[in-house]
C-alpha cells in the first residue's frame, strides 16, 4: 500500500503543495497498480444448502478503476440509448440496464471469457462486459451493418460468439434451458468452463426455469442460474408475483446464494465461488439483489408501480458506480477530479461511437432473406418461391 501511504502523507502537507500533488496524481500509473487490496462486501452473503463464501474480497486498484470506467461507460451508453430511442433512431423494443451494471461487471471479473453467458433481452451491458464495443452496440441498436448481429437483431438480440456470449433472447425465461444445454456441452468437453444463465425475477416464475433446474441438477451440469432480481417483473412487484421472492432458495435441492447485486465486488466473489462449486458439484442459483432505474421497456415510464422516492433512494444509497467511486476515494486510488475526467472521457467515447454508428450503412436489402435457412439442403425451393413472390421488384 505504498501508494496510499504516499497520498495520505501528501494530504497532510500544506496547501502550497496541493497543485504539485494533483499533477503527481495525474501522472501516476493508477490504472496499472496491481497491489492487492482486501475489501469487505456491503452485506454478508445469504446461502441456501451451501456454505457462504467469505465477505473479504481480493481486488486491486487497477481492478477498481476499471470497474469504475466500465460501469460509467455502461451507464452513459444506456442513457444515450434512451435518447436515441426517443429520437426514433432506435426501433424495435429497448430495455435498459442502468442500475444493474455491477452484475455484468462483477460477473466478468469472477470468470473468464471461456465461460459462457446467456441472458434475456436486457443485454446491452452484458455484451459490453464480454468485450463488445460501443460501436457494435449503437450500430445494432440502430439496425446498422456494423452492429454485433449485423443490424438484424436490434436491442434484444446481441451476440458475441468469440467470447461465449450466447446472447439476448426475447421470450421471458426461454434462455434458461438453453444455458443448461451449453453447460452440458461444457461438461462433456471437460474443459473446466461453466455457463452463467441470467434471468430476471419475472422469469423466475416461468415453468421452464424449473424444468431446466431439474435437468441441471440431475446431470450435475456446470450451470449457474443467475436471477437478476431488480424487484419488478415488468410492472409487477416481486411480492405480487412470487409466493417466495427468495429466489436463491427456489431451487430447493439446488444450492443458492443471495448477493448484493449493487456491489460489484460481492458479485465477483459470488461468481468465482459459484464457478468453483459448479465445476465440482453441479448447478447453483445466484440471486443478485439489484435495481433498474429505467422502466421495463421504453414504453414504461417506470413510475406507475413504484415511487420516485424509492428510485432516488436506491440511487443515493446503493448505486453501484457511486459505491466504487467511494471505495476509490476512500483508499485514495484516484482523486475526484480524475474520476470526473474518466466520466468525461467515457462520455466522449460514447458520443464518438454514436456518430460513427450513424455513418454505418443499413444492411443490404437482400439480408432480409439470408440466415433464414442454410443454403442447400433443399431450401432453394423456398427461396425460389420467395423470389417468385417478390419477383417483380427484383426484375424492375
Amino acid at each position, binding site marked *: 500500500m505504498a501508494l496510499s501511504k504516499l497520498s495520505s502523507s501528501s494530504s497532510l502537507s500544506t496547501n502550497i503543495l496541493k497543485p504539485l500533488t494533483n499533477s503527481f496524481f495525474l501522472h501516476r500509473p493508477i490504472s496499472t497498480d496491481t497491489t492487492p487490496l482486501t475489501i469487505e462486501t456491503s452485506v454478508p452473503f445469504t446461502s441456501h444448502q451451501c456454505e457462504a463464501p467469505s465477505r473479504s474480497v481480493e481486488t486491486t486498484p487497477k481492478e477498481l478503476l476499471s470497474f469504475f470506467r466500465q460501469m460509467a461507460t455502461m451507464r452513459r451508453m444506456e442513457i444515450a440509448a434512451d435518447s436515441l430511442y426517443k429520437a426514433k433512431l432506435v*426501433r*424495435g*423494443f429497448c430495455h435498459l440496464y442502468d442500475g444493474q451494471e455491477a452484475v455484468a461487471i462483477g460477473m466478468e471479473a469472477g470468470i473468464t471469457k471461456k465461460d459462457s453467458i446467456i441472458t434475456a433481452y436486457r443485454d446491452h451491458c452484458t455484451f459490453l462486459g464480454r468485450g463488445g464495443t460501443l460501436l457494435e452496440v449503437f450500430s445494432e441498436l440502430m*439496425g446498422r451493418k456494423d452492429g454485433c448481429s449485423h*443490424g*438484424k*437483431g*436490434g*436491442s*434484444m*438480440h446481441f451476440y458475441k460468439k468469440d467470447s461465449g456470449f450466447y446472447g439476448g433472447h*426475447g*421470450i*421471458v*425465461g*426461454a434462455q434458461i434451458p438453453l444455458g443448461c444445454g451449453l453447460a452440458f456441452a461444457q461438461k462433456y468437453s471437460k474443459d473446466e468452463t461453466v455457463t452463467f444463465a441470467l434471468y430476471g425475477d*419475472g*422469469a423466475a*416464475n*416461468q*415453468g*421452464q426455469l424449473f424444468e431446466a433446474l431439474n435437468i441441471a441438477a440431475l446431470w450435475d451440469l456446470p450451470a449457474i442460474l443467475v436471477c437478476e432480481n431488480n424487484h419488478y*417483473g*415488468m*410492472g*409487477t412487484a416481486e411480492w*405480487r*408475483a*412470487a409466493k417466495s421472492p427468495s429466489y436463491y432458495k427456489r431451487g430447493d435441492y439446488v444450492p443458492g446464494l443471495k448477493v448484493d447485486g449493487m456491489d460489484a465486488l460481492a458479485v465477483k466473489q459470488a461468481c468465482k465461488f459459484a464457478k468453483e462449486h459448479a465445476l465440482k458439484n453441479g448447478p447453483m442459483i445466484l440471486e443478485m439483489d439489484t435495481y433498474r432505474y429505467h422502466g421495463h421497456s421504453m*414504453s*414504461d415510464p417506470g413510475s*406507475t*408501480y413504484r415511487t420516485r422516492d424509492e428510485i432516488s433512494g436506491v440511487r443515493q444509497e446503493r448505486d453501484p458506480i457511486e459505491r466504487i467511486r467511494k471505495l476509490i476515494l476512500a483508499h485514495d486510488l484516484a482523486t475526484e477530479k480524475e474520476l470526473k475526467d474518466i466520466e468525461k472521457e467515457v462520455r466522449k467515447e460514447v458520443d464518438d461511437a454514436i456518430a460513427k454508428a450513424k455513418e454505418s450503412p*443499413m*444492411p443490404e*436489402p437482400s*439480408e*432480409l*432473406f439470408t440466415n*433464414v435457412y442454410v443454403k442447400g439442403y433443399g431450401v432453394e425451393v*423456398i427461396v425460389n*418461391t*420467395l423470389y*417468385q*413472390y*417478390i419477383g*417483380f*421488384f427484383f426484375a*424492375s
Partner: protein
Amino acid sequence: MASGLRRFVGSLSRRNLSTACANKQLIQQHDGGVGSGKSLNLYSAINQALHIALETDPRAYVFGEDVGFGGVFRCTTGLADRFGKSRVFNTPLCEQGIVGFAIGLAAMGNRAIAEIQFADYIFPAFDQIVNEAAKFRYRSGNQFNCGGPSCDSPGLTVRAPYGAVGHGGHYHSQSPEAFFCHVPGLKVVIPRSPQQAKGLLLSCIRDPNPVVFFEPKWLYRFSVEEVPEDDYMLPLSEAEVIREGSDITLVGWGAQLSIMEQACLDAEKEGISCELIDLKTLIPWDKETVEASVRKTGRLLISHEAPVTGGFGAEISASILERCFLRLEAPVARVCGLDTPFPLVFEPFYMPTKNKASCLESFKVPTQHCCMNLTAHGS
C-alpha cells in the same frame, strides 16, 4: 342469444367501410334501442367490452400480466378499481400457467378472460390451448369443457395483441393466427375496428367454446370510430362484405383490412371495382359469403401479415378453388408477409403493403400470377 341486452348488430353493419374511420351511418341505422355511440379508439372499445363482461356476469374474471394496472396497452384500465382485485388481477410472467389456470377456472363454470401480453408470447401457452382447451370437451365425451353447453354458459377467452406496429421487431410483431386455425375445437377471431372489437369480444366471451381473440395492436390508438355504449354482440363465423364491387374479391382480417381498403381505392381509380370482405372469424369461417362474392367477381385475393406459406390464406384459397374452380378467371392471389422471420429494419419490405396488394395489372390480365407494385421496394 335472444337476451334483450345482447343484441347482434352484425347484419346492420353490412354497409360501407367502417375500418379505420368513424362510421356514423352505421350507428344511425341501428334498429333503435342501442344507445348513442361515442367516438372511441380500439383499446377503449375493448376496455368497454371488458367492463360490460364483468358487469353482466359476476363469475367473469380478467387476468394476465400487468392487467391490474391497466395492461401495457391500457385495455384493462379501471377494471381492478371497479370490480375488485379478486376479479381483475395480475399474474406472474408464466403464459403456460395463465392459460392452464384459465381452463381450470372455466371448467368450474366461470368466464375466464385471460390476456397474453403479446401474441408473440403465446407459444409457451400453445400446449395448454391446443392440447387442453381445444380438446377438453371432445376427449371427455362432453363431461368437461372450458365453456358450457350454450351461449349462456361461461367459457374461456384468450386475448392477445398481434401484428406489426411499424417498429416492433422480431418478438412484438408476429401474427400467429394460422397456428391456432389448425386446431378443431378452438375459435379464432380478429376484429378490424373499435366497434367490431367490442361486439366481437363480447360474443367471444359469451361463446361456449374456447376462443383466441387477437387484437390488432397497430389499431389500438390509431383506429377511432363511434361505438355504441351499450351491450351488443356481433355474430361469430359471419364474414362481412364491407365494400361491394364486381371485378375482384379481397379477403382479409384485422389491421390488414385498412391496407386493403386503400388498395381498393387505388384500384377504383384504375377502373377496377373491388369487393372487400372482413372474415372476422377465422375458424370456423364463413365460406358462403366468400364463395358468393367470388362467384360474382371471378377473382380472389387474400392478404394477411403472417408469412404466406401455411398462412390462413392458403386454406381460404384451397376451399374457394374447390367451390368455385370453374368460375375463377384467374388464380387465387395471396399478398402476405414474406417467408422470413419478422424483420427489424426491413419491416416495410416484409409487410403486405397496399402497393403490393394493389395488383392492378393482375386484375386486367387474368393469367398473371400476382403483381406487386414495385415502389415499396424501390424506395
